[in-house]
């Protein structure tokens, strides 16, 4: 076994996904560089990866999110960008974890719609009650008994 010394110790890395008709990852990266020239920022096809001191990263994320709150989504990442254990430049094929993001990004427009509709929902029916109402209920034991009895009596 060989010794392991981590790079970028004490930093946080976050993914910033942008799925907006008005904002591209390039626009977002320029805004991020303006807001934080001291952080490590990597532009990707889906948005950005930002690495740096945790409080600074959180403040830049808040600045970026404000640009288009319903179309920008943020998530923590365990690895720093370009890590040879994860980067597809070294491994070939898609980065592990990409398929999960790809799947969720295919549904993200519904989430954007839901976020945009939130202010209009205030005072309306509770969403938790709607979920509860739509939940599949288990069959009532009394109903099963009635079905059995009907079946038995029909065979006389």
């Amino acid at each position: 076994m060989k010794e392991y010394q981590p790079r970028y110790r004490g930093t946080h890395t976050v993914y910033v996904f942008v799925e907006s008709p008005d904002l591209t990852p390039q626009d977002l990266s320029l805004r991020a560089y303006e807001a934080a020239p001291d952080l490590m920022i990597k532009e990707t096809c889906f948005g950005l990866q930002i690495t740096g001191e945790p409080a600074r990263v959180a403040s830049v994320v808040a600045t970026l999110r404000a640009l288009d709150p319903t179309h920008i989504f943020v998530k923590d990442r365990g690895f720093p960008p370009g890590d040879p254990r994860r980067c597809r430049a070294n491994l070939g094929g898609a980065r592990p974890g990409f398929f999960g993001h790809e799947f969720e990004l295919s549904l993200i427009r519904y989430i954007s719609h839901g976020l945009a509709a939130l202010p209009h929902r205030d005072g309306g029916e509770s969403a938790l009650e709607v979920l509860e109402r739509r939940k599949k209920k288990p069959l009532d034991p009394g109903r099963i008994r009635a079905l059995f009895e009907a079946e038995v009596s029909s065979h006389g």
Partner: protein
Amino acid sequence: MAKVFIYPTTSLILSDMVARFGHEPLGSALGIRERIQTAGFDSPPLQVTPEEPKKGLRWAAVEVPSGVRGRMAIIGPQIEEADAAIIINDADLAFGCMGCARTNELVMYLLRHRGIPVLDLTYPRSEEEGEIFVAAIREFLEKLPKGGNAE
């Protein structure tokens, strides 16, 4: 700010929603980050060392495969730490090259066994479902201590 466990633990949507509404999402990225940033023996790709399946014995028996126990060493402490949980029940992405169906079953069991508030959801497949999905998460999180507001 409450600590909210998310399932799937790698979910972008849940991680964003929980942080957006003012709470702390607990997912696998935090556990992996902790290991990646700790010096020790080199154990690529996730720095999960042979010690981890031993730690996993707290949540799974010794005859359970080491893959389950190794995963539980990352996820188990987060389940114990969580004040609430949000589960997406039709998340096929939680099983595959990086996920384990038996670990997922154990995670569900432990979450429900702990008695913390749990919100059960499915992925939205339309705009109307998207509205209910987002609003339900906000309402659920607002009931937790020190909830935030939507932006």
